[in-house]
């Protein structure tokens, strides 16, 4: 404690008696940070530029001495992804200087993956570059005295992203073509178009078909995960009634449930609930929950889908009395390719991507997944969708 007090006093003295040295030091720090790649710019509480580094000059084409005292927002206009100029009031810097938000970060957590909000800055010569930035207020006794913005050019990252997407598209096509060919060739033989087969031949062909289907599912799941990681959250919000949503989802798995002689039960309450969310994503998540419940249940059991509406969330839950997840493996179920040991034994063909994808999807719609599970007893998977983001609720009083 004593030592840090001493250090503070020494620093204060140095600032009073040797301000030039302190300024020189700050300049050096600014120029070191980011070199010519990262711009660092400091503004006062009115948003006027106080100082900046070489990186700012390199990226924007402005010399610091030209812009000192000018408003940073007018010196470097910002355009959004649709190339519309972001108005003064909507600039994060304005909001920070007004004390409306405390800090901006370049990365927002989406799906546990760091995403960059993309925008463009306009250079002195009117050309533009995609950038990402972090802005932090300078606070003194709780008041905003100014702010520091650090930004950099992400042209290279964007190019790499494009290459990645192109590769994905090509890979998906090139991998699917032979697999779909094999699929249709086997199906054609099984249809008897080419003549009858012996029972043994048919059995072999069935096995080849299963292996091929497994590969198709794997390719499709891998591509979905990769695609989900690289895409910006793409939301298509639409309103759908929970009843019809549940009906649709249950229909997609009813054949699988029947084949395993499982009883599939839907929600029994009669509330008229409406949801506003990306319904395809929601269906996909619930579909995964149900498919897992069916796959990991023993025959003749029950799989139940419930819907519960609370003050701030709607909770979908899928209950099974299947093999459950061993306690020591529960932490890992959302990991990519992870499959619990008992799941592998029961059903060797899973890809280990279902819950991983469901987790990423739920992050996209602002929902949360949780679960309870006991080995050999069963599992319950929950999807919590916050109402304030995605849902509007209308309760039909008659049915209450």
């Amino acid at each position, binding site marked *: 404690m004593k030592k840090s007090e001493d250090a503070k006093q020494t620093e204060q003295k140095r600032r009073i008696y040797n301000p030039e040295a302190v300024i020189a030091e700050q300049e050096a720090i600014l120029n070191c940070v980011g070199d010519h790649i990262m711009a660092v710019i400091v503004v006062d509480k009115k948003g006027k530029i106080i100082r900046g580094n070489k990186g700012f000059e390199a990226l924007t084409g402005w010399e610091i001495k030209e812009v000192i005292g000018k408003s940073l927002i007018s010196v470097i206009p910002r355009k959004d992804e649709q190339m519309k100029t972001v108005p003064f009031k909507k600039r994060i810097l304005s909001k920070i200087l007004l004390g409306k938000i405390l800090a901006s970060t370049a990365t927002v957590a989406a799906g546990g993956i760091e995403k960059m909000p993309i925008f463009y800055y306009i250079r002195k010569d009117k050309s533009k570059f995609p950038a990402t930035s972090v802005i932090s207020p300078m606070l003194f006794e709780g008041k905003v005295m100014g702010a520091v913005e650090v930004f950099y050019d992400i042209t290279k990252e964007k190019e790499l992203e494009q290459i990645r997407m192109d590769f994905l598209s090509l890979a998906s096509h090139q991998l699917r073509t032979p697999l779909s060919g094999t699929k249709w060739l086997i199906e*054609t033989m099984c249809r008897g178009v080419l003549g009858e087969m012996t029972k043994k031949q048919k059995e072999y062909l069935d096995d080849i078909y299963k292996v091929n289907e497994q590969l198709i599912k794997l390719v499709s799941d891998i591509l979905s995960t990769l695609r989900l990681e690289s895409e910006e959250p793409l939301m298509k919000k639409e309103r759908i009634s929970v009843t019809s949503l549940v009906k649709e989802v249950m229909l997609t798995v009813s054949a699988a449930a029947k084949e395993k002689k499982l009883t599939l039960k839907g929600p029994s309450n009669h509330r008229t609930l409406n949801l506003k969310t990306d319904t395809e994503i929601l269906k996909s998540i619930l579909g995964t929950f149900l498919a897992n419940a069916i796959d990991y249940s023993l025959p003749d059991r029950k799989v139940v889908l419930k819907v519960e509406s609370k003050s701030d969330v709607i909770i979908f839950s899928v209950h099974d009395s299947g093999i459950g997840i061993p306690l020591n493996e529960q932490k890992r179920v959302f990991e990519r390719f992870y499959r619990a040991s008992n799941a592998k034994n029961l059903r060797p063909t899973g890809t280990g991507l279902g819950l991983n994808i469901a987790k990423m999807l739920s992050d996209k719609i602002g929902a949360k997944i949780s679960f309870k599970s006991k080995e050999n007893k069963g599992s319950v998977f929950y999807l919590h969708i916050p109402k304030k983001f995605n849902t509007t609720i209308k309760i039909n009083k008659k049915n209450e």
Partner: protein
Amino acid sequence: MNNILIVEDEDFLIRVLEDNLAAEGYAVDVAKNGEQAVGKMRKCKPNLILLDILMPKCDGFYVLSEIKKDPKRKSIPVIVLSNLGEEAAINRAMKMGADDYFIKSQHKIEEVIKRIGNYFKGKKMPKR
């Protein structure tokens, strides 16, 4: 006899489609790329077209636009059979006037054959 034009560059897929369609009693013609497809269509008028998207020379989108440009042929049903699974590709084809879009690996050959049958049976029969 109903005539179906298969536009596809993979030999094994051509064969599998040919065998299945012939078994159902359809007459089949084949074009191995977009250019050939456009040429064949100018000479004859199939009752239905099965169209792949990624092909050498001209792709399926080009073929589709050529079909829809031609007043005599624009009503021929076009079923896209592709492994391009992106929504953008699907939307593009449907907007251009494709009647169906099958991602090959996700559908059984039986489903495709059944759908083709529906075009000849039902209301989606091309106007002649």
